[in-house]
């Protein structure tokens, strides 16, 4: 072992927390999952057909003809669904990891802060009050989510003059309860419209289109840039608010920025996908358990793995009961729950031998 006296003279400092390897592994998984989800679908198309369509759209021409319907199935139905699934999954996982970092609470997620309840209320109001609900729904869900989080923040901040993690989470629980109650009440009064509300709450990518993708890309991109930009600061927050303050960081400013960015992205995502649960909690946790707890690793790897996870879950939603759908939220809970328990248990037994 090198002695302390000479450590400064050219001894290399240990490399910083490196996300490179886990990011590369996660990217490789994402590529495989994306290819599989593009190749497989309830419409039983050959790999060659799928390849021809995709190649045709990126300017390559492979020999052979593809029918207009197969063309539409691959390019207008299947691919936008895969891409949208990836975007939504990435956003939910990144948003979840960011909420957890900023509130230093492993259970913090869009549900806990009222984003989901607010979006649910917005969607319900849109569905029961406007017959043109189908295109109003994303906007209404988005507005509801933003209103709920703003309220959570205001209530949490007012409670004791300034916002602490605990007061905000308590406020989030209260806001979510009120919004859920309102939503349930409206739903009960419009029982005939129950089905659309119900299927939105279960979450689904069944009507994904490229225009949905275009709708959320700007929000997801902005949110991702801001959140990834905070990955080092989230590590600083791990020493607590006071110590972070004494290190020159304003935890409230970090929290406000991160919550705003995560909410924007999450609300945009759930506005097109409905309330897909579990992604925001499970993906970051599995990443944390299998790689490193540093947010410099957790954020980028959650982003990529969230995309893989939801694309895979949606492949299940499309295929398990083909030609019928299974609600995506049901699949994420079914895959996610047991997988999470598995990782948790194997991790614990490994720690037990340390």
């Amino acid at each position, binding site marked *: 072992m090198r002695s302390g006296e000479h450590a400064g003279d050219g001894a290399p400092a240990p490399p910083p927390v490196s996300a490179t390897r886990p990011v590369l592994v996660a990217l490789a998984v994402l590529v495989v999952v994306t290819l599989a989800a593009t190749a497989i679908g309830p*419409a039983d198309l050959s790999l060659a057909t799928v390849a021809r369509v995709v190649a045709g759209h990126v300017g390559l021409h492979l020999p052979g003809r593809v029918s207009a319907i197969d063309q539409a199935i691959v390019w207008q*139905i299947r691919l936008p669904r895969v891409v949208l699934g990836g975007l939504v999954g990435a956003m939910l996982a990144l948003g979840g990891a960011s909420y957890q970092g900023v509130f230093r609470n492993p259970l913090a997620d869009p549900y806990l802060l009222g984003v989901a309840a607010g979006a649910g209320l917005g969607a319900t109001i849109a569905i029961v009050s406007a017959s043109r609900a189908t295109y109003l729904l994303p906007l209404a869900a988005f507005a509801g989510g933003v209103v709920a989080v703003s309220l959570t923040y205001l209530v949490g901040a007012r409670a004791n003059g300034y916002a602490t993690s605990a007061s905000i989470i308590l406020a989030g629980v209260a806001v979510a309860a009120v919004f859920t109650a309102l939503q349930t009440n409206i739903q009960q009064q419009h029982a005939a419209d129950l089905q*659309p509300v119900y299927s939105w709450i279960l979450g689904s990518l*069944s009507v994904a289109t490229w225009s949905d993708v275009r709708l959320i890309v700007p929000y997801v991109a902005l949110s991702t840039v801001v959140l990834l930009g905070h990955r080092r600061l989230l590590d600083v927050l791990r020493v607590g608010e006071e110590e972070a303050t004494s290190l020159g960081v304003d935890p409230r400013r970090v929290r406000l920025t991160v919550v705003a960015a995560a909410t924007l992205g999450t609300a945009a995502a759930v506005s097109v996908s409905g309330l897909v649960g579990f992604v925001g909690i499970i993906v970051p946790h599995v990443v944390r358990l299998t790689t490193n707890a540093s947010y410099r690793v957790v954020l980028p790897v959650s982003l990529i793995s969230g995309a893989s996870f939801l694309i895979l879950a949606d492949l299940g939603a499309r295929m398990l009961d083909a030609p*019928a759908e299974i609600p995506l939220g049901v699949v994420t809970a079914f895959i996610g729950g047991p997988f999470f328990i598995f990782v948790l248990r194997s991790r614990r037994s490994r720690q037990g031998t340390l």
Partner: protein
Amino acid sequence: MRALRVALASAVATVGLALATSAGGAGARPAWPVTVRAANGAITIAHQPTRIMSLSPTATEMLYAIGAGSQVTAVDKYSNYPAGTPRTSLDGYSLNAEAVARYRPDLIILAYDPPALAAQLATLHIPVIYDPAAPTLAVAYHQYLGLGEATGHLAGARAEVARLRVRVAAIVRTAPHVPAGTTYYYELDPTYYTVTSATFVGQLLSMLGLHSIADAGGTHVSGGYPQLTAESILQANPSIILLADHGCCQATPASVAARPGWSALSAVAAGRIYVVSDSLASRWGPRVTLLLQAVASDLRRAFG
């Protein structure tokens, strides 16, 4: 929709009971008290009811069709046919026993049985007939006869059933012949919920020689009301598209044709997309003939 499916499942289970009803009731003049069988078992009605409450839009239509309309004193908020029904603000999907009892009914008809409601009403000694969504025309006919017996209009019920049988047969006979293997996609909502041939609507459409594209996954999948994936709809390439979600969700032939990728469908290319009235399509009462007639004339336009 979901409620409908739940109700349907229990209806399927009670078809046998309903069959027994008509056989037992046939021929006899109603002598009070009468006992009728419905999905909730045998119901004894002591006197001819004069304050009927129908919380089922279909049952409301049936009661008026068999001549019991004058005995109906309250109906739910969705019972919009025929004109002039005594509508209340009650919602058949979310009821409480006290709100129902306020109207002092002497017979209640439900199409949806919220948990424990029937049991609660039973403690008020008000007879309840539970006639959930009929899975077949035959079950619908048996519901007619049950209502007829319970209200003292058995003859009217028989006449109405006979009229329906004749009318349905006539529509089917005069309907255009569709090519063998003609398929349809019947849209219940814009997230691609549809029907299989095992449902009430599916059976009506089968009479006209049509097959549901959802049958490929088994006719009983999701209780006959599966949500299809968009790509399986495209691959099935249905011969015609029927939109039962115009009223709820503003689906139109133009909006369907504008969906990304759907222009490749032959039904879209040939303009074989038709709107079906949701209020007709979700009921199994006297106006099923209108639904059948409407689809038959769509077929005439499509293939005639």
